[in-house]
């Protein structure tokens, strides 16, 4: 086999209402591919947390999802402010979200730890002032 399926999405950072559309689309595609529902759930939750982060912290970006025989890899790349202290950002409860974001139901500082919990591998590549790329892998 060795076939790969690649899905790419542009994430609009100015539209909170539409945040999650990419994750929803991936969820549907994986369902149609007949992927195990627990794996779909993990991918959907992790990607949705990341997609929301791109909108509330980084003004959008691009997501690429690659489905291969062994795993699903999600790459979330933005040109936002970057993360100055990854150790802090990974702590449950740490959030720099603005009060408006909190009134929308986000900004509890749970997203990054949740993404780590639901995936088999997660890497954060970030440069302050340039942007952040998060790569997550879920193995079959």
């Amino acid at each position, binding site marked *: 086999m060795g076939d790969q399926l690649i899905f790419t999405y542009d994430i609009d950072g100015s539209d*909170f*209402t539409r*945040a*999650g559309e990419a*994750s*929803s689309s991936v*969820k549907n595609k994986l369902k149609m591919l007949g992927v195990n*529902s627990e794996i779909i*759930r993990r991918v*959907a*939750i992790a990607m*949705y*947390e990341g997609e*929301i982060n791109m909108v509330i912290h980084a003004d959008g970006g691009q997501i690429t999802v690659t489905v291969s025989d062994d795993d699903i890899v999600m790459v979330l790349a933005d040109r936002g402010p970057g993360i100055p202290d990854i150790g802090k950002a990974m702590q449950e409860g740490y959030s720099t979200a603005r009060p408006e974001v*909190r009134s*929308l*139901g*986000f*900004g*509890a*500082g*749970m*997203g990054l*730890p*949740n993404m780590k919990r639901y995936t088999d591998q997660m890497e954060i590549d970030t440069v302050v002032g340039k942007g952040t790329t998060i790569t997550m892998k879920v193995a079959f």
Partner: protein
Amino acid sequence: MTIREMQKILDAQFLYGEELEDVDAEFVFSADMMSDVLAYCGKCSVLMTGLCNPQVVRTAEMLDIVCIIFVRGKMPDEHMLALAMEKGIAILATEHYMFTACGLLYEHGLRGGA
């Protein structure tokens, strides 16, 4: 407990999904922060919340939630209902506040599943 039974106990309005009335649920998660729902919802298949925006439906979708219950008279708009319809998620709305709504369901045997 079926969605229909929850609707009766909460004196709730069925805003979408009457055809899902027989779907059975055992565990409920209630919160206004979707961050917490995503982190702690666990095996829950019903989400009770006082927050009312499209991300509530999105969050439910990602977690395979079968029914969203809006408390204290919150009314989802058409966009949210359309989204719920597309995803096959039942929507109930009750006038009860969160504590009372939770208490009523608990009294009738539902539990938190986080």
